[in-house]
Structures are given as C-alpha cells and as structure tokens.
C-alpha cells in the first residue's frame, strides 16, 4: 500500500514538474473528446427526432367522398384493402368531423377556423408502415385508386433526415476514432517529455535495480490521470452545453434538442473510461522506446 502511494506520489511530482506540458495534453484530450462526445449527442438528437417522425403517421390518403360519387362503404373498403398489405402496420380512418376537430385544434388561435366549413375538409386514411422507407411503394399503389383524392407523405423529409442521420453517424464515428487516436498520440508525447525530463533519475533507478514496472508505473499513472482529466473536462463541457440547450427546449416543440439522461450518463462514463484507457495506452506507447532495460 505504501508502495502504491509512493508510485502515485512520483506521478504527481512528475506532473507538477511539467505542468505546462501536462496542461497541454489535458486540453488536447479535452478538445478531442468534447468534439467526439458532442458529435455523438448531435447524432442522438437527430435519431430521436427522426424516430418521432417515424412513429407518427407515414402516409395520409385524402379520400374522395359522396360529392365525387364515392360512398362511405368504398372508403372503408379501401381501408380494409390497405390493412391487408404486408408493409402496413396500422391504419386510422379520420372522417370529416374529426378532421375538422383536428383543424380547429391546429389553428386554434387564428381567425381561419371561423371561415372554414367542416364539409370542405376531406376524410382521410392515415397509414403507419412497418418500414418507413416503403412509403413510395404505398403511394404508387394508392395513387390510381378511384376513391383517392390525394396521397401525401412526409417521406421525402424522412429520407433526408435518415440520410443526415447516417452521415452524422459515420462522421461522428470517424471523428471519434481520429480524435481518440490523436489523444493517445498526444499523451504518448507528453510521457516522452516526462521521461526525458527525468532521464537521470531513471538511469539511477535502473542502476540500483528498480524493477521495470516500478520505473514504468508512475508514467502510466501520469498518462491515465491526464486522459481521465481531459475526458472529465470534456464530459463536463458537453453536460453544460446539454443543460443550456435543455433550457431552450420548451420554446421549440417541433425539434427536441436534448438527449435522455440515461444516454448521456452511459456515454459520459464510457468516455471517462476511454480517457483513462487512452492515457494508459499513450503512456505505454511513449514508454516503449525509451525504457529498455
């Protein structure tokens, strides 16, 4: 136990002696990991928001009605037909009255409500698909049905969002990988400078028979502390940004700008762990060349 305390103390003395270099390494790790963690959070925000899209209505079929010579029966028959398709997970029939209620709700604070008569709003079938990317097929099949007035789908926006989501996914992953590698290299550099600063001491240690691990462990501890400190600052910065964005959240209903606590916590812990491991790894890399027996 006193031995471990001695080794940790050695690491801290090391770090104090090279405060500037250590600060540089910690800042570098901070910037890399904050960027990577930030990218992850943005990616999650996009995913959550596209998920909301995906969970809503995928295709709306506005129907012709008795004025166009289409009976309620043929409307319902169409719905039954749609229900039978493999790609359809559920449907909902919204009649003219319900459409009007919804309309009133949507435009509650505007004068437009008073000018619109329920009869001008068409009945519709709202379709939810098992796989949202199938919206084109469904549209294609419906577009020539006699009972159909118009088919609309947020599909194109969804396409664009899922594209964005996958681009961000790769970008975030790439960024995290590059930045992670950069953090490892930077720490290894710092450790090399620390070894160089202590080369006399290391030479004497070797001379009096200090074991290899006894010489290495303080440097490994130093690398670990630097990686961990950088990761901790990065996690704090992202947490702070998340809290600030969370405050804005109430005013924007359409796009949710925050991520779940569980998600943040999981990644924060992983990043702290990664910081420490990257520190040890970088340190080991720095030690490899300089500490031959």
């Amino acid at each position, binding site marked *: 136990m*006193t*031995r471990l305390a*001695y080794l940790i103390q050695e690491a801290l003395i090391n770090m104090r002696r090279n405060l500037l270099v250590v600060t540089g390494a910690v800042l570098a790790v901070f910037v890399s990991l904050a960027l990577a963690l930030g990218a992850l959070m943005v990616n999650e925000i996009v995913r959550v928001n596209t998920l909301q899209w995906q969970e809503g209505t995928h295709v709306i079929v506005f129907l012709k009605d008795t004025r166009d010579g289409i009976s309620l029966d043929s409307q319902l028959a169409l719905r039954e037909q749609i229900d039978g398709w493999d790609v359809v997970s559920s449907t909902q029939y919204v009649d003219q009255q319900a459409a009007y209620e919804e309309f009133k709700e949507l435009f509650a604070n505007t004068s437009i409500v008073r000018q619109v008569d329920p009869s001008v709003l068409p009945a519709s079938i709202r379709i939810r698909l098992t796989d949202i990317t199938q919206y084109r097929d469904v549209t294609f099949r419906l577009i020539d049905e006699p009972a159909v007035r118009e088919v609309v789908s947020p599909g194109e926006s969804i396409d664009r969002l899922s594209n964005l989501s996958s681009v961000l996914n790769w970008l975030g992953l790439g960024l995290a990988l590059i930045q992670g590698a950069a953090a490892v290299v930077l720490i290894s550099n710092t450790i090399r400078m620390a070894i160089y600063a202590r080369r*006399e*001491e290391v*030479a*004497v*240690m*070797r*001379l*009096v*028979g*200090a*074991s*290899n691990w*006894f*010489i290495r462990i303080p440097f490994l501890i130093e690398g670990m502390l630097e990686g961990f400190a950088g990761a901790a600052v990065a996690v704090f910065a992202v947490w702070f940004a998340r809290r600030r964005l969370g405050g804005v959240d109430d005013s924007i209903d359409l796009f949710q700008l925050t991520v779940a606590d569980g998600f943040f916590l999981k990644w924060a812990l992983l990043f702290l762990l990664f910081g420490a491991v990257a520190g040890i790894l970088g340190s080991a890399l720095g030690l490899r060349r300089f500490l031959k*027996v």
Partner: protein
Amino acid sequence: MIRLQDVTKVYEGGTVAVRDVGLDVPKGEFLFLVGPSGSGKSTLIRLLLREEQPTRGTIWVAGKDITAMPSWKIPYLRRTIGTVFQDFKLLPNKTVGENVAFALEVLGRPRGVIKTQVNQVLDLVGLEGKADRLPKQLSGGEQQRVSVARAFVNRPPIMLCDEPTGNLDPATSVGIMRLLDRINRTGTTIVMATHDHAIVDAMRRRVVALEAGSVVRDQSTGRYEEGQVSS
C-alpha cells in the same frame, strides 16, 4: 563470485571492445582493472551489469549465468551489485539523504527501515550530519562518499567502481580508497577500473591489465606498470 569465459564484445560498426577475456574473481577479492583509455575496462563493467550483452562468451555473477538471464530478472541482478562512477551519478535536486534513500525506495522498502539504514550508512562513510545538504553543496570527495553510501546501503555482495577517483585530488582519493578497502574487508567483492597509478601501487591487490580488449597481465598482488612485479 564473478566469472567470465571467452567473453568478446564487438560493438556495432565492428569495434572490438573486449576480446576473449577469461577471468575468475573469487568472493571477497579486491581487483583493479587497469589499462589505457579504450582498452575495454568500462565495457567490461557494463557487461557485468548487463547493460550490454557480450557478442560471444558467458558471464556468471553470484552463481548465475547473466548472459542467459531473462530481462525481467536484470533488476534483481543489479540489486546484488553496488556501483560507483567517476561522475557520481547523484540526483542534483535530491538531498544527500534522499539520494541514498532513493536506492531503497525503488526496492519498495518500508519508510522506517529506509530512515534508519540511510542514517547508518551515512555515518559509516563519514557524512554524519550532512543528510540534508544538496550534492552541489558538498566537495567532490564528499559527493563520491554519497555515491559509495548509496551503493553500499543495500549491503550488496559485489561492488563495481568505474574510475571512482577519476575526478578527485590524490588526498581525497586516498579517503575514498580507505572506504572501499573497509567495505572490501566486510567480505564485499570489489572490481575497480582505474587509471590511478599511485592508488594501485599503494594498495597492492590483484591487478588485471587490459590492452585493446585483451587481458595482457593478471597478477595477484600487482602494480600499475609491468616490470615492478612483486608476486
């Protein structure tokens, strides 16, 4: 205690530093390695510490073949060998006491033990009351005493000294040699590389002379120069 058999060391680039050296140093012996600069004295000492591996041949230290030793065991080899160098190799920002304690700290000795042993060994080498000084506040002779104290604090069976008096004036050198002689009489085997004629001639111990890496003379009580043989 130390045995070399047909040891040859060729450095990269083809320089032959040590050529077919065979040597047997029994326990408790005091041996001078003499010879001009570049004759291979320092290389021999580096070989005994396994700072270098011989190109050919076998070296035994304390009964172990160190040329076949796995690298993780080398620190344990070095714990059985105290070393003293011409340039003292003290850490300038540590006090005298801390410099000596360092040798015990890296072996993981408990703090209390370190404290008593350091004070004890500083008394032995004549540096009582100077534990809190920094090396630069001491004379050359005193600094070398610190280095001897550090080498001896662990009571190693072997001490290797590479020109320990090389930076000291004759009077101070005599003091260091008295110290080494006393350590030798406790049963410690000492191998000392030196240029110092006066010391070798005065001590009248075993002398091994090297020239261009080869042993050219080995006398049980010799002098620095050949022709003044007395054995």
